[in-house]
């Protein structure tokens, strides 16, 4: 594969080098399917029994999601096989997401803590189970008038 003088720009038509790798596509499909199944098995059967380990499961989901995203972009969207300069124009801006996610989630968490510290009414209102409020005769779902439509 040392010489690829032909540019894609002309046309794929003459198709000498682009015999499409169908095998790689099906391999990617199986990888995506297996990862999704593992996620679902964890989400349905394992995670509900271990509430204290929620954070660990979430980290696991993030790793799996990242892996699936990588395979879709690299193989299905064919980005892995493009020129490195082009890959970089996509990958480098996308890295901004790491900062966005970290900064905004941190901010949300900080807002929650500040509010719980300085607004005791809010804290009480959001940490009292509905059952106790429903003691006045109202019943679960009907507690919200606008829910009856």
């Amino acid at each position, binding site marked *: 594969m*040392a010489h690829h003088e032909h540019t894609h*720009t002309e046309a794929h038509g003459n198709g000498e080098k682009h015999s499409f790798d169908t095998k790689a596509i099906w391999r990617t499909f199986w990888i995506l399917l297996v990862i999704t199944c593992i996620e679902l098995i964890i989400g349905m059967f394992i995670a509900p029994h271990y509430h204290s380990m929620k954070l660990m499961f979430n980290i696991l989901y993030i790793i799996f999601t990242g892996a699936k995203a990588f395979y879709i972009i690299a193989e299905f969207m064919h980005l892995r096989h493009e020129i490195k300069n082009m890959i970089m124009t996509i990958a480098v801006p996308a890295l901004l997401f790491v900062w966005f996610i970290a900064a905004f989630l941190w901010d949300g968490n900080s807002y929650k803590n500040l509010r719980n510290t300085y607004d005791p009414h809010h804290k009480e209102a959001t940490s009292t189970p509905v059952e106790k409020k429903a003691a006045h005769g109202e019943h679960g779902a009907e507690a919200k008038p606008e829910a009856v*439509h």
Partner: protein
Amino acid sequence: MAQAVPANQKWWGGGRSPFNVEYGKLMMWYFLMSDAFTFGAFLIAYGTVRFSSNGWPDPNVVFSSFPGMGHAHMPLVFVSVMTFILIMSSVTMVLAVGAGHSNDRKSVLKWLGWTIVGGAAFLGCQAWEWTHLYHQGAWWGMNPFVNADGTEASTNFTNFFFTITGFHGFHVFSGVIINIIMFIMTYKGVFDRRGHYLMIEKAGLYWHFVDLVWVFVFTCFYLF
């Protein structure tokens, strides 16, 4: 592995595409980048609000219905069917692109057809899910579900759910429309006369992007 390029290749010397891709395809990539930031903004806003809340509904309780199964508790089963449909339709789309590389009109039509079927099936599933949730009393501005810890939930959950899955569903819908147009153009032999099927590749990029976004929507709403 990036494409191998001869060391003395002068990419920026003019006369050729420096990124070795067709202009329209490159621009499709940059459009998808901007679309990714739109979806990213939605999902990050959702994450921020969820992090700032003391409680949040449990997806295993909210998404536990399956068509025709009444009140049977089947958490996440229906959404896994939807996920499978979308992954599958992504595969048929790549096969259509692959057939386009060898100018095989019949195969392009076959695989594009299956991709359209997959997209329509996904939209049908989403329509059922939305209708079901609506009949449970969930919509923008109303949330019948309680938080996982039994406290009363705000409407943030349903607002974000319907906005983000709706925005994604709209992308699926436009993807299906684009694929139908590609199908008609292929059928009429437009790409054969043009000599290449690059247009199918651009539609393919868009379709895979829709699948890619679903991967994140799936994790953020149904798993976390």
